[in-house]
């Protein structure tokens, strides 16, 4: 419950609003923005004190989608938690699958085969494309630009078609396994993917043409939601928001994982650290993701997709049906889970919104002692109060849209 007298000390107020209130003899208007507001794509409650149109105090309340991901993980085997990670950032689920599985692989000390890494990169970049399309489309729609949303959703459907043919589900993918992926790529995937990627890019370019030079859109986006580069780093912001502030921190470049070290891609960096630069960084990242996928489709080697490690990866069904040892192995792995050695790891991947880290503590049994998800949305949301205080009420919507808070990930 919010104490009406309470001021958030973490957010210093510019100027002296108290003196201004004395003169005017009007109390500031308290506005409850959310939890379910049509202009926010995410369940969050923002309490705003308005002085006219100006926000003089704000308080952000998250947790409306809290469902105990970490508690749930502690009671499930390592392989059982993979479907739960789909539900973290539900607009780019394969990225979460990859992050979790790579953390567990680091715990076991497993290296995955090359083909598996390429397939994972394809899945990750498809997810990133879908996430950026949804973010830009939804944010534009909240600024009353409805047409780009239609184009981007159509393009996102094409990308989800590819995800669907990879793993059999559009959003609840459950694609990556510890030590491999659930299934090899379909044989004709490259021919299936290339026209769809081209078509998605064409739709994306159309949305770009509608938005980027549009004066209304630019006036809403330019200069709003500013946070200096030092503040961004100090507030723990990562991902496109940090890069829009001029800091080229990208986990794919800084700590290359999978095959990102061998692939050729650029990290776009903004200058002004406002919403418009965040939008531009996302635009460019979409094109870079497409470039990465095309490189992967070219360079993907043949070979196995699963690590040959009987501690984690379930044996192939052909052997389970016919041989006793593998049948016993299957029973042991399902009923006890793979048992990593005791210890702890932190592994991070670059998710669509920033650094997605998994910190897993193992006590040597088949269930994690602790499974912590370092959610980028959560850290990116924390300076929202600072970004909107002192600005106009109308700036809250684009700022919130460009943070791209995903409730499932922020609230876990």
């Amino acid at each position, binding site marked *: *419950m*919010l104490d*009406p007298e309470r001021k*958030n*000390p*973490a957010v210093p107020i510019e100027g002296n609003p108290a003196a201004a209130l004395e003169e005017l003899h009007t109390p500031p208007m308290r506005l409850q923005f959310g939890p379910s507001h049509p202009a926010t794509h995410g369940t969050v409650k923002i309490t705003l004190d308005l002085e006219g149109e100006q926000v003089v105090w704000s308080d952000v*309340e*998250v*947790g409306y989608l*809290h469902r*105990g991901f*970490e*508690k*749930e993980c*502690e*009671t*499930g085997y390592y392989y059982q938690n993979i479907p739960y990670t789909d539900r973290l950032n539900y607009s780019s689920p394969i990225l979460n699958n990859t992050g979790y599985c790579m953390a567990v692989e*680091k*715990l076991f*000390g497993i290296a995955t085969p090359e083909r598996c890494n390429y397939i994972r990169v394809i899945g990750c970049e498809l997810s990133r494309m879908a996430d950026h399309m949804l973010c830009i489309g939804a944010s534009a729609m909240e600024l009353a630009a409805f047409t780009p949303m239609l184009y981007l959703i159509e393009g996102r459907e094409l990308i989800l078609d590819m995800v669907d043919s990879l793993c059999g589900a559009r959003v609840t993918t459950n694609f990556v396994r510890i030590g491999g992926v659930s299934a090899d790529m379909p044989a004709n995937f490259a021919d299936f993917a290339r026209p769809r990627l081209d078509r998605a890019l064409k739709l994306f370019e159309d949305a770009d043409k509608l938005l980027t030079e549009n004066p209304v859109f630019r006036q809403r986006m330019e200069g709003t939601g500013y946070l200096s580069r030092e*503040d961004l*780093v*100090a*507030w*723990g*912001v*990562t991902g496109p928001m*940090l890069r829009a502030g001029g*800091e080229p*921190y990208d986990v794919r470049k*800084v*700590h290359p994982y999978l095959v990102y070290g061998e692939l050729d891609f650029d990290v776009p960096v903004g200058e002004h650290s406002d919403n418009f630069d965040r939008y531009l960084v996302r635009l460019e990242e979409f094109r870079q993701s497409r470039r990465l996928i095309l490189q992967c489709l070219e360079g993907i080697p043949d070979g196995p997709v699963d690590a040959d490690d009987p501690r984690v990866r379930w044996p192939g069904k052909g052997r389970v049906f016919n041989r006793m040892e593998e049948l016993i192995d299957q029973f042991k792995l399902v009923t*006890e889970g793979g*048992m990593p050695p*005791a*210890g*702890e*790891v*932190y592994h*991070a991947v670059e998710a669509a919104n920033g*650094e997605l*880290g998994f*910190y897993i*503590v*193992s*006590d*040597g*049994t088949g*269930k994690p*002692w*602790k499974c*912590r998800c*370092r959610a980028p949305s*959560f*850290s990116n*949301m*924390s*300076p929202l109060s600072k970004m909107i205080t002192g600005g106009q009420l109308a700036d809250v919507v684009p700022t919130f849209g460009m943070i791209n808070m995903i409730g499932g990930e922020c*609230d876990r």
Partner: protein
Amino acid sequence: MSAEKPEEKAPAAPELSPLLEKVLARLGDRVLAHRTARGDDRIHVARERILEVVRILRDDPELNFDLLLDVTAIDYFGQPDDFETKLQVWDRNRATMRRLPQRRHELALPPRGSEPRFAVVYHLTSTRLAHRLRIKCRVPEDDPKLASVTPVWPAANWLERETWDLYGIVFDGHPDLRRIYLYEEFVGHPLRKDYAKHGEQPIQEYVGPGAKEPRRPH
């Protein structure tokens, strides 16, 4: 399970990782123990000195840990870090531990150890130098208090609120320590191991601003 002290567990350190060398040279005896495992470097710090340590880590130009990634806690139940249990295949303890849960989603807990119960974990990274470090502080159960690092990194604001919410660890000097995910009337801290997963909460009357008058009987 033997209750080893973290000091004893610090290996004879045949080789320090380059980062740990720099950290140890700079921090000296403030580091209680250190370890490099699976490519991750971590140091243990006494909880009284956490603020001092993180200021040095952030301000030193060679370390330059300017980005606080994560603050969380672990309920170790008094067990030592890394659970030095030396498991073997036919270990009787392990066999019983595995049979204990009658329902699969129940959790078998080890006996309480002698160490402080909680560990608060900080993950730091540097945007310029691209290295990562983990800091652990042991916090006892009867006095779960720790200095807040919010003055050093404002990013800790929400992360510490989350740790307070889910583990009940109090951060001294935090500007606004209240629950972030759960409601204020929530009883207990759900990520503690002794909080039952299927536990129920008492129903609370809403008493805040805007609450309705209690309805009069007819």
